[in-house]
């Protein structure tokens, strides 16, 4: 009794739309046990009053699963990109600074548009082609050990954290970043997917592809899913080395 109620302070980099300038706004809210950044944002939405006592617009953000599997809630928290749904207030230094992942176009406040990642997945053909005009039957089986290994790569949720952390993904470069590269390794590992592996390798040998990686290795340090991104990049480096020679010296066979 008599003790001042514990509070949490947030500083949020906001903007009203993509083309508008950003501004910082500060909020102080009552502490609750086990609160995370999203529950704090919900509290701000409920009562959008900043530390100057002024009523303001509620802060907008993106979320979906609330259990770190969809990737929608990614933002920069105290300087590092991560998911806000698993960012526990107790583990963060205050004031907690929230910023959008500005590697992507900012839609409003903390919401970004990650379309470029989905475009990259299309560009590198990150799928297994099975559609045809008739039933092609069953594909080859995948060894169980390989399936377990591939499962780890398939955990990518296209959250964009690896792109935000990468110094080579920025507005001066068209580098697609680690996530779509890792997907190429995944699709090439699939027994049916590997039938078109040269198409994917050639795709990542294009503009803004694999060669734009400079090995800062921030991606693998930042990926919330622990995906071995830099091992995949090095493995793809070897495969594209072979593909490069094959393209030039190789015979006329379609896939090797």
């Amino acid at each position, binding site marked *: 009794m008599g003790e001042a109620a514990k509070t949490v302070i947030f500083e949020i980099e906001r903007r009203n739309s993509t083309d508008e300038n950003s501004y910082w706004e500060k909020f102080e809210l009552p502490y609750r046990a086990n609160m995370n950044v999203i529950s704090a944002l919900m509290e701000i939405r409920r009562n959008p009053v900043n530390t100057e006592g002024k009523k303001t617009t509620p802060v907008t953000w993106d979320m979906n699963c609330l259990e770190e599997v969809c990737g929608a809630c990614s933002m920069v928290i105290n300087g590092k990109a991560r998911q806000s749904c698993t960012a526990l207030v107790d583990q963060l230094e205050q004031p907690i600074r929230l910023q959008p992942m500005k590697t992507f176009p900012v839609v409003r406040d903390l919401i970004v548009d990650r379309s470029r990642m989905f475009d990259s997945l299309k560009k590198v053909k990150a799928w297994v082609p099975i559609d045809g005009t008739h039933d092609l039957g069953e594909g080859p089986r995948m060894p169980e050990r390989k399936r377990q290994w591939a499962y780890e790569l398939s955990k990518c949720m296209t959250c964009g954290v690896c792109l935000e952390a990468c110094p080579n993904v920025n507005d001066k470069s068209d580098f697609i970043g680690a996530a779509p590269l890792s997907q190429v390794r995944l699709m090439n590992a699939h027994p049916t997917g590997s039938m078109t592996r040269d198409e994917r390798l050639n795709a990542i040998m294009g503009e803004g592809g694999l060669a734009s990686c400079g090995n800062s290795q921030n991606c693998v*340090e930042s990926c919330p899913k622990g995906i071995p991104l830099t091992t995949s990049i090095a493995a793809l480096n070897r495969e594209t080395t072979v593909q490069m020679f094959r393209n030039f010296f190789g015979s006329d066979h379609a896939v090797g």
Partner: protein
Amino acid sequence: MENREFLLRRLHSLLGIIPIGIFLTQHLIVNHFATQGVEAFNNASHFMANLPFVIFLEIFVIYLPLMYHAFYGLYIAFTTKNNPGHYSYMRNILFVAQRYTGIFLVIFIAWHVFETRFQVAIGAAEANFNMMANILDNPWMLAFYIAGVLAATFHLANGLWSFLVTWGITQSEKSQRYTTYFTLLVFIVLSIIGIRALFAFI
């Protein structure tokens, strides 16, 4: 050509080792003869300067590859957005250092070539022990040369690590970690050779 950027980047990487990295190593070793006295250095330098077709060797083994690597390297360095503050992992810090040492090397190498090889070419100086002794007499120049040698040895050693990844030779985390130790050793050994040579001139 569709794969143009890929091929240009791979060429940049390759030239960093062959021939530039090999040349740098050779250059530092030849300079190291200075530790054995004036005559030993002059003999070594005389031998290098009188290799057959030396001007073609210089153009194709040094000037053209180095200019390609340097100018493309500047482009690469200025198209990154360094973030060592928030993402202060060791590899990211080395990544930034690779770029800063590269930029510094452009300045250092340009000055170094102007002050030595160019002066010899226009007949204003003779390439020998005394030339270097005169240059390094100035403590500021000595500091500049120490910085230049360390930047070059770091850039080559860390570049060797990066080269092995770029060509897909070191893939596993373990092999990449062990090459970090190995390239640290390369950095230390080459630095000792380079710095010892500098101090032999004063």
